[in-house]
């Protein structure tokens, strides 16, 4: 071979591999067999398979942002790749965690559930850190910016698997009118033709020639798209599949291009031709490096040109290993021994002849009892047909325990399985979606029958091509197998174990113990033992586990049933799922037209939904949040403050029946309301609970503008649409979101009228001409603005609605005209404080979806004379009028120096000293609490049981320790209880 070498590093050492090698192939080429340490016992582990089913050979790719748990049997090498083994410390060869193996009696089934029970605090401080250090797979990757993308397909047919069956199906469809997607997980089509020595020729050509010709035909057909290096991971309901394409196979990372593509495929029919997976057999120390599945060994020979070992022992319970024997001996190598559990009379003549001809030691009706070796296989021990133990020196053991149709995707699609007695495995039975299975995935392991199967199952499609294919096989055509899940063990040292799940370190002993403890349902057993719960999902072992359990339970395997197969088939990178929806693309950020001004004024922002809102403004670098908020709140009530309220939702409602509709949507009555006035209004759900609040402005009976809270803008519009469309479609009414059509300023404070008069000197803001809750539109430069006199804070206040293009200039103008008043910009935290001082609620803070207007003492907002509005009937339900509901009250600490914490409980008892004998009766909780700079003490609001009746009494509020704070229960209106300031 003249191929150029590729150099990579594994655990610091440099190795050379060939182009196209997987990490595993390249390491085997260099005779490296110890790849990692196991999950629980830290036992040495090697390469068990040659593909996606690998349980052991998981590695970390250091130069790909530390990508962990990469299958060495799938990932291809490239120049400069840096690979590290996983779950070992300090090094792979001397691993201290392997002491767990000696301590293994305490690590048995249900270990985690049983052992780490107490004492209190031990889980968090001792157990979890310990488990995390000693058990597990790779380390988390470093942060990186993914360039993965999503791609959508709509096709007539998807063919999953480009092996022989998939190719035959594709050939049938080539050049027809069907839109076909052919998906192959390897980098080349061909499957078994490339992996094994089973087919000598097709149509008298070598199978490679046939493959090349067929691929060319498919490529030139114009109706079939081929995706290679693409793994179908998910078969959802409604003919929807998801596949993961690796765009970077055998190439170093390029951060400019998408490395992964998540294909979302909608199809009319799905052809599953995804083949089969070889399973193992359980024996003593069946996990040692050097034990490998037989078909995988053969795949290394045929596909990669790597000979993992020149003289392995072969152990089988079926006829398929002839192909391995043939491949190996054709290369001039000779197995150490051939061990077959079947009677000699059942073993195929071809096999026996070949063994005899080459003089290979042959053990019919024998089994492997176990393996010996510290870090890899040194010897195997064979139990011969006379029940004697015979030991053979070898460094490799190839095992075949039979084949399972790869039914994962089929069962994801909700297809049903049945037990196949001839092949001792589950195979597809009843389809649930438009699924066709072809080849070994359908349980058909015969090449002769494959052609018949393809013709028959594709006969529902019209206009397909005729197939002319003739196979010449190199081995026995008929598949024959004898049941064998676990071999009989000779000695039982502490170190010796027989594994049923290699990745999660589950032994057959664990299975037996779990059944003894009563876990006799397969789904319970799986969770209790963690069998088949690793990232490989027990692909080579789960049927063996069923076999062993069915024997213990003395039931048929079909009665035991399988556990549920859930997507994905194999782990999918989060970066692929996220696609481009990361960082700035994850969630849009909404900024008001004044955003740049806020940044210049050192605003600290708060996220409200997608909006960035100023939370508070830092006047100097060393000003704390508390200081900022106190300063802002004090200034507002002293002179004036201004808040950017642009984020408030605004909905325009128009139509002949707008008045009727608004009357139905809100609790208040709007019928007698004069045009050009506004009203603070409540929106309820049908259950009577507060949904939102806002101001309803009436332009006339056919035209309203309502505001919503920032976070509820979309849901309030959706709520209105729902009722307009479904409940009252006869009403002539139209809604439109105009949130972003206007910037909104809330000017508050005793000086706000003077400021308004200076800025808009042609408008009369006197009480007579511009009374509380009135609004009007005014010409402003080349546009129009709307000014509403309303109060957010309990102070004299105005709301200005201005088109975004004029917002910044007007905002600056307002500041220019109010220098002598020290007009203060304030943020949401100050707004909450000012509202709390007045007992004004914040929907979502003082309400939580279980609070009615009656609970908040807002009866005055309910239009009792209205015949109906959403939620009205609920307000008279027995539970809603119950006096003992939680109601909103104000709390003031008796000791005025103390602060109350939001979320704390309100209780009747002062003394909480330990031990607490009786449960503490909790009356409710504190919903809002602030230190009021204007009153110089804390004010709080709370929802407490029978709150209205408790006004004037003394209660206690819990703290983070066992102290309580004595409070007086008051009306929730702490400043200006007669509401005179806003009427100024």
């Amino acid at each position: 071979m003249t191929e150029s070498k590729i150099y990579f590093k594994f655990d610091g050492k440099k190795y050379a591999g060939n182009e196209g090698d997987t990490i595993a192939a390249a390491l085997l080429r260099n005779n490296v067999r110890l790849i990692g340490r196991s999950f629980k016992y830290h036992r040495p582990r090697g390469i068990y398979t040659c593909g996606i089913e690998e349980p052991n050979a998981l590695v970390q790719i250091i130069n790909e942002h530390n990508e962990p748990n990469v299958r060495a049997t799938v990932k291809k090498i490239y120049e400069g790749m840096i690979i590290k083994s996983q779950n070992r410390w300090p090094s792979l060869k001397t691993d201290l965690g392997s002491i767990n193996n000696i301590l293994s009696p305490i690590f048995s089934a249900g270990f985690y559930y049983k052992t780490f029970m107490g004492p209190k605090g031990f889980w968090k401080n001792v157990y979890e850190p310990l488990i995390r250090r000693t058990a597990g797979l790779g380390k988390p990757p470093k942060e990186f910016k993914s360039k993965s993308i999503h791609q959508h397909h709509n096709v007539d047919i998807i063919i999953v698997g480009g092996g022989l069956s998939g190719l035959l199906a594709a050939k049938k469809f080539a050049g027809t009118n069907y839109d076909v997607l052919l998906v192959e997980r390897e980098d080349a089509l061909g499957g078994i033709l490339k992996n094994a020595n089973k087919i000598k020729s097709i149509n008298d050509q070598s199978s490679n020639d046939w493959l090349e010709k067929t691929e060319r035909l498919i490529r030139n057909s114009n109706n079939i798209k081929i995706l290679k290096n693409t793994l179908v991971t998910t078969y959802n309901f409604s003919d929807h599949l998801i596949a993961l394409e690796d765009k970077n196979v055998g190439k170093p990372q390029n951060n400019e291009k998408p490395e992964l593509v998540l294909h979302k495929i909608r199809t009319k029919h799905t052809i599953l031709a995804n083949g089969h997976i070889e399973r193992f057999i359980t024996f003593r120390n069946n996990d040692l490096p050097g034990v490998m599945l037989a078909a995988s060994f053969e795949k290394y020979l045929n596909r990669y040109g790597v000979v993992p070992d020149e003289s392995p022992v072969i152990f089988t319970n079926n006829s398929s290993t002839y192909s391995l024997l043939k491949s190996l001996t054709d290369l001039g190598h000779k197995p150490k021994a051939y061990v077959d559990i079947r009677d000699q009379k059942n073993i195929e003549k071809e096999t026996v002849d070949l063994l005899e001809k080459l003089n290979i030691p042959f053990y019919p009706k024998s089994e492997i009892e176990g393996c010996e070796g510290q870090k890899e296989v040194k010897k195997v021990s064979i139990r011969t047909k006379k029940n004697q133990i015979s030991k053979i020196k070898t460094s490799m053991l190839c095992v075949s325990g039979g084949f399972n149709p790869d039914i994962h995707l089929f069962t994801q699609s909700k297809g049903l399985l049945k037990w196949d007695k001839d092949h001792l495995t589950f195979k597809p039975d009843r389809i649930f979606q438009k699924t066709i299975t072809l080849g070994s995935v359908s349980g058909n392991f015969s090449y002769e029958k494959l052609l018949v199967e393809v013709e028959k199952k594709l006969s529902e499609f019209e206009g397909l091509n005729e197939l002319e294919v003739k196979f010449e096989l190199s081995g026995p055509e008929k598949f024959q197998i004898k049941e064998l899940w676990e071999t009989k063990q000779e000695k039982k040292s502490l170190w010796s174990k027989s594994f049923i799940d290699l990745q999660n370190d589950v032994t057959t002993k664990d299975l037996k113990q779990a059944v003894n403890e009563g876990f006799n349902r397969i789904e319970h057993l799986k969770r209790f033992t963690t069998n088949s719960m690793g990232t490989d999902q027990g692909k080579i072992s789960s049927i063996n586990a069923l076999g062993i359990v069915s024997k213990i339970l003395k039931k048929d395997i079909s009665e035991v049933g399988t556990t549920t197969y859930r997507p994905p088939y194999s782990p999918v990178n989060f970066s692929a799922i996220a696609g481009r929806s990361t960082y700035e693309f994850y969630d849009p950020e909404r900024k008001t037209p004044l955003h740049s001004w806020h940044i210049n004024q050192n605003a600290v922002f708060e996220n409200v939904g997608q909006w960035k809102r100023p939370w508070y403004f830092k006047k100097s670098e060393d000003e704390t949040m508390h200081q900022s908020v106190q300063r802002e709140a004090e200034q507002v009530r002293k002179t004036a403050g201004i808040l950017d309220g642009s984020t408030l939702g605004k909905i325009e409602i128009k139509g002949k029946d707008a008045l009727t509709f608004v009357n139905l949507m809100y609790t208040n009555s709007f019928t007698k309301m004069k045009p050009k006035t506004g009203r603070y209004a409540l929106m309820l759900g049908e259950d009577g609970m507060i949904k939102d609040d806002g101001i309803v402005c009436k332009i006339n009976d056919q035209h309203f503008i309502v505001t919503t809270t920032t976070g509820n803008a979309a849901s309030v519009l959706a709520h209105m649409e729902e009722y307009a469309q479904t409940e009252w479609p006869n009403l002539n009414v139209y809604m439109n979101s105009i949130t972003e059509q206007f910037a909104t300023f809330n000017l508050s404070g005793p000086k706000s009228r003077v400021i308004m008069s200076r800025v808009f000197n042609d408008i009369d803001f006197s009480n007579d001409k511009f009374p509380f809750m009135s609004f009007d539109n005014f010409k402003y430069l080349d546009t129009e603005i709307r000014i509403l006199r309303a109060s957010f804070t309990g102070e004299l206040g105005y709301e200005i609605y201005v088109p975004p293009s004029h917002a910044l200039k007007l905002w600056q103008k307002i500041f220019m005209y109010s220098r002598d008043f020290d007009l203060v910009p304030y943020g949401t935290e100050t707004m909450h404080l000012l509202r709390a001082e007045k007992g004004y609620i914040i929907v979502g803070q003082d309400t939580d979806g279980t609070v009615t207007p009656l609970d908040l003492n807002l009866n005055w907002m309910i239009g009792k004379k209205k015949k109906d509005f959403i939620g009205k009937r609920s307000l008279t339900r027995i539970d809603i009028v119950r006096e003992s509901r939680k109601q909103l009250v104000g709390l003031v600490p008796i000791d005025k120096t103390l602060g109350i914490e939001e979320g704390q409980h309100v209780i009747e008892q002062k003394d909480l000293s330990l031990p607490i004998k009786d449960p503490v009766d909790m009356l409710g909780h504190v919903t809002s609490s602030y230190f009021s700079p204007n009153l110089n003490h804390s004010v709080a609001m709370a929802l407490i049981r029978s709150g209205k009746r408790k006004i004037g009494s003394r209660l206690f509020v819990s703290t983070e320790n066992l102290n309580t704070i004595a409070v007086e229960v008051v009306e929730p209106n702490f400043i200006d209880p007669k509401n005179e300031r806003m009427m100024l």
Partner: protein
Amino acid sequence: MFTIRCPYCGERDQSEFSNGGEAHVARPKDPEQISDREWSEYVFIRANPKGIYYERWVHTHGCKKWFNAVRNTSTDEILKVYKIGENPPPLKEFKNTIKTPSGEPDVGSGNFSVKKP
């Protein structure tokens, strides 16, 4: 992940739609005249059967229109969509086989991927 045929826009991905619960639950004409129990049934109680069912859907990320659908809740098959105001098709029009993925019982759920012998 199934598709839904919006009666206004055509077939679209399920992710564009939101479910609005049982359809044809009429809001009482005169809420003041009915008992607490009757009103509560309107507000809180829905049939939620396993099988064929009238449902409301809204094309949230599309035309924002509400419409009705007949869906088999055990298989997620949408058997029919129709506009608000149109008469609901009688359920007997559809074969109510309660065909569940794995032949599980009519009530409750299960995960049996092997057919019951």
